[in-house]
């Protein structure tokens, strides 16, 4: 080993991008980072950012940071999607499109990994942070520091995955990196290692959040909020966090074993010397299938809040909604094999998993019908959160039915790895998960900022997204039936697929316009914020979060509310229930930069592990350990808030505001 390898590991000048499009990606990242740094420095806002945001343990601020990072990652993943659509629309016959096949493979691998781990997961934890403590009548989460650490680990993972745009390449093995392709023999560059470590770091953050919010909902509910009075969003989050607790350790193990195979020459999943590659596929889906429900359950929760509010009625079938959440939680752990019926596990095994998969449509159907029953004879207001729901309920039901089709093993043998499958899961994750999160963001935005989002641009965004989605993924269902497999970078012109691929490309452009509308929406929202100011209850809400001022104060509730019924705030507004204000002293956590420091070390650890810079790995591990110990043994981490002082101040805040 020479000194260069000792210091730089596998890093060298040859790892810089190879072609024009890759250079463009790299320069965009560098320019983006420089622009942000430049603007913040120009405005002299570093101190403010550090004091008010980076070191904040307020879940509402952490939630906002999650959503900002998630939307930035949506731009990254969306650019990947546009490139893929451009390639498939043009790479036919004698034309080979704009991407090399290796580059195309990197892009679809990055697209999937980024959209699931850094868009959807980040957006989800953002919404959970914003609303769960408020909804359960709590001042904070169970472990405020851990919450900050979760966010910063998520950020470190996102930063690491974007490093691959500049240094080296990314995995070409798909978003789940099946071996033996992802093993060292077939993927000798550092691409798969980037995939492993950015997911490992982001996944660790998710795991900690899972524990945190599970404990928060179980232990921190306010007085009187027994289980059957818990708002539906919090129920779905509890279900989702249960899945995180049981599923994410499996991902941690699987990624670690793949890294050991690649780095220490072990034989867990190799094609020789006792490795078992199908074990990888089983393990990754034992995490991966619950992961889908981790994402969708909170989206169901958002709709269960949005539909009653915009229909002016209470949620139909609350009890059945709760039971369907837990039916989904349990069932989601016994369906993983439907991702690879073609493994050939035998008729009996495939039949079991096929039936279980079809059965999971039952609790989901219960939810769909309950939302429709809630709307039935309600006074419906079609504001943008409700529009997202309308788009969701149609598309999600269709996509779900496509899923039941594929749950039948004989049909799946035909549809496996086809574009039909791709269209199915995009229907579930885009029109299910993403539409739900957009609805949630619009719905809860005023509670965090004190003003509503711009409705005009919101409605435009919805229509472009909806029509774009149908155009982009409708053709993929048809192409899948015609035998088009996923991940094709080129096909013969005699197949006649090109027109449909072009339609899909137009759909992708429409979605991009929809996203641009959302950017315009944000700009307009912050520009006109004075005009859009609202009181504590802009939508005629039903649950506790609407009882406090907008924006919600850092301590959420000056006096902890006592809950007497399911829709406590609604009952209060209608005189069926009253709050007795009792101001007590309490303590709040002090801001701390420890999570930023720990996560910076973890980022360096990941970077070192990707490039085999072992001194950096050891040094970073040491640094992170010391930073954690210093924080843990610091007993001066809280400050006191005086109830009397607060009572005085609240008098000026007009609490609670009547309609």
């Amino acid at each position, binding site marked *: 080993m020479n000194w260069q390898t000792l210091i730089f590991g596998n890093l060298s000048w040859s790892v810089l991008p190879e072609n024009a499009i890759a250079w463009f990606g790299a320069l965009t990242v560098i320019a983006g980072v420089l622009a942000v740094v430049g603007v913040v420095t120009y405005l002299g806002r570093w101190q403010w950012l550090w004091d008010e945001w980076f070191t904040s343990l307020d879940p509402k601020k952490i939630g906002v940071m999650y959503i900002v990072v998630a939307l930035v990652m949506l731009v990254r993943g969306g650019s990947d999607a546009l490139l893929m659509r451009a390639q498939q629309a043009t790479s036919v016959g004698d034309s080979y499109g704009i991407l090399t096949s290796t580059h195309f493979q990197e892009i679809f691998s990055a697209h999937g990994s980024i959209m699931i781990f850094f868009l959807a997961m980040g957006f989800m934890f953002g919404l959970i942070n914003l609303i769960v403590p408020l909804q359960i009548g709590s001042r904070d989460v169970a*472990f405020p520091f851990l919450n900050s650490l979760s966010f910063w680990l998520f950020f470190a993972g996102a930063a690491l995955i974007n490093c691959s745009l500049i240094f080296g390449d990314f995995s070409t093995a798909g978003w789940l990196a099946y071996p033996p392709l992802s093993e060292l023999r077939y993927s000798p560059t550092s691409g798969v290692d980037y995939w492993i470590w950015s997911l490992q770091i982001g996944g660790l953050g998710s795991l900690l959040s899972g*524990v945190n919010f599970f404990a928060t909902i*179980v*232990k921190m509910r306010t007085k009187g909020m027994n289980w059957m009075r818990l708002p539906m969003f919090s129920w779905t989050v509890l279900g989702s966090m249960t899945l995180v607790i049981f599923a994410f350790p*499996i991902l941690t193990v699987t990624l670690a074993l793949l890294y050991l195979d690649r780095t220490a020459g072990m034989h*867990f999943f190799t094609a020789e010397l*006792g490795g078992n590659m199908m074990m990888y596929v089983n*393990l990754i889906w034992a995490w991966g299938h619950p992961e889908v429900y981790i994402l969708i359950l909170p989206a169901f929760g958002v709709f269960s809040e949005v539909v009653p509010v915009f229909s002016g009625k209470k949620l139909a079938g609350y009890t059945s909604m709760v039971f369907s959440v837990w039916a989904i939680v349990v069932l989601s752990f016994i369906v993983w094999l439907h991702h690879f019926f073609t493994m050939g596990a035998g008729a009996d095994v495939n039949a079991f998993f096929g039936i279980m998969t079809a059965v999971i449509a039952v609790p989901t159907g219960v939810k769909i019908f309950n939302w429709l029953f809630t709307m039935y004879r309600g006074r419906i207001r079609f504001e943008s959160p409700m529009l997202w729901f309308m788009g969701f309920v149609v598309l999600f039901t269709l996509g779900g039915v496509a899923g039941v089709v594929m749950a039948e093993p004989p049909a799946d043998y035909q549809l496996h790895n086809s574009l039909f499958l791709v269209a199915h899961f995009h229907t579930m994750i885009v029109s299910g998960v993403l539409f739900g999160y957009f609805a949630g963001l619009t719905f809860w935005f005023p509670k965090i900022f004190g003003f509503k989002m711009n409705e005009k641009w919101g409605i435009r965004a919805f229509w472009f997204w909806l029509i774009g989605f149908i155009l982009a993924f409708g053709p993929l269902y048809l192409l899948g039936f015609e035998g088009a497999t996923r991940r094709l970078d080129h096909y013969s012109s005699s197949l006649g697929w090109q027109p449909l691929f072009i339609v899909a490309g137009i759909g992708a452009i429409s979605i991009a316009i929809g996203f641009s509308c959302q950017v315009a929406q944000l700009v307009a929202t912050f520009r006109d914020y004075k005009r859009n100011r609202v009181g504590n209850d802009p939508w005629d809400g039903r649950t506790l979060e609407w009882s406090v001022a907008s924006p919600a*104060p*850092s301590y959420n509730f000056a006096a902890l509310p006592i809950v007497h019924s399911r829709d406590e705030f609604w009952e209060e507004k209608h005189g069926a229930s009253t709050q007795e204000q009792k101001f007590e002293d309490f303590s709040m956590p002090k801001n701390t930069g420890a999570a930023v420091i720990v996560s910076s070390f973890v980022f360096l650890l990941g970077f070192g592990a990707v490039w085999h810079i072992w001194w950096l790995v050891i040094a970073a591990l040491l640094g992170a350990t010391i930073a954690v110990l210093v924080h843990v043994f610091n007993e001066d981490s809280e400050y006191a808030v005086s109830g009397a002082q607060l009572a005085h101040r609240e008098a000026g805040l007009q609490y609670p505001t009547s309609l």
Partner: protein
Amino acid sequence: MTDEFDRSGILSVDEKSKDSTIVFGFWMYLMTDLVLFASLFVVFVVLRGPEYGGASIKNTFDLQYVFIETIALLVSSFTCGLALLFAREGNVRGTVSWLLATFVLGAAFVAMEVSEFSRLLAQGLAPARDGFLSGYFTLVGTHGAHVTVGLLWLLAMVVAIAGRGLSRGNMRKLALFAMFWHFLDVIWIFIFTIVYLMGVL
């Protein structure tokens, strides 16, 4: 969202409910660790068959040696329990002494494991040799790494208790440490049974 309250002066409100939340959260963390070990056990069992090289190693395990290792770890759990009992009585010296005894036993366990690993490596039985050995070293090594982290935590506890005494914060951390240490015991009992006993007998 800024607040203008006086940040000086610490007030401990409802410390009891905070204790119970922390213990509950730690149980949840232990559940995640349990799933982590469960996955490693599954991997080990899948790769145990003779076709993965498992048969060749049977004779190299020394049950007697592993039994002594096991006793060291089990007794360390007992001494850890004693430390907790002394802590509840507010006896700093007793607590620190039994924690140190726990440390010695835990360190002996790790040392024995390291020496067994190096014996296997010297025989050419390295983790990169085949699937079985990959599974074996990773499962047992992950447990060993947990014990090592526990030892570091233990040392930090000793320093903190010697310095600040049995403060509320230290009592809390001690209780969590005891849960962690007993948990590692339980995992080891499964390793002893599934890896060693079922491997040799």
